[in-house]
């Protein structure tokens, strides 16, 4: 389990795009570095991220080692009614974590 911060606006109007900001606490080890003994540090990154709103895709992203540590993402979502944003990401070990955020459309 890694720590995830998600920011959505409190007030959302129907069919008006709003921004979602996500910050995932993850080292995103690139696999290019060596430790002090000269051993290669194995690659360990989040390689896939998908955001859905009530099952409909918002953003589906593939990450490569060129994404900085503690990946930050900001993207735009449009909603017709209140629902749940599901943010799912997968790391190199195949571990999947999902964060659920309720949004309220007024």
């Amino acid at each position, binding site marked *: 389990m890694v720590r995830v911060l998600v920011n959505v606006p409190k007030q959302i109007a129907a069919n008006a795009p*709003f921004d979602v900001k996500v910050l995932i606490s993850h080292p995103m080890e*690139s696999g290019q570095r060596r430790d002090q003994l000269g051993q290669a540090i194995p690659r360990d990154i989040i390689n896939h991220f998908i955001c859905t709103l009530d099952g409909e*895709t*918002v*953003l589906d*992203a593939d990450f*490569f*080692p*060129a994404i900085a540590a503690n990946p930050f993402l900001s993207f735009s979502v449009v909603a017709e009614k209140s629902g749940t944003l599901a943010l799912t990401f997968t790391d190199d070990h195949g571990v999947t974590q999902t964060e659920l955020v309720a949004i309220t459309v007024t």
Partner: protein
Amino acid sequence: MILPRRRLVLLAACCAVSPAVATPADVAALIQVLVGDAPLKDGLIHLDLPVMVENGNSVAMTVSVADPPSPVEAIHVFAEGNPLPLVAVFRFGPRSGAPRVTTRMRLATSQTVIAIAKLRDGTCWRDSIDLLVTLAACIDQA
């Protein structure tokens, strides 16, 4: 504080172990595979990165497509001078409000970063930025 001499050793070790970086030809080949026979034009997509980068470990990057004539399927980002040329692929779904993403990327050296947008009508659009990196991502040692 690390001694200057030790820092030099670290730097040498770091650069010695880093594998061959991607070349513009590698990136061109990847883009060729991505685009195929579709027309590739400059414009429409906008890649926003600082031209002078102080720290290559974390560089804010925004890619956006303004008023696309047809929905944007995906945006691909490539870095010509990184060990791996691929940076990220963003695919937009029906609930996307606008084809725009902000994230933070690593830059190993001064280089050209390229973004390609693929639209549903089959056209591809390109934007690139030449940038200077003062502190490369490679020097950050555990």
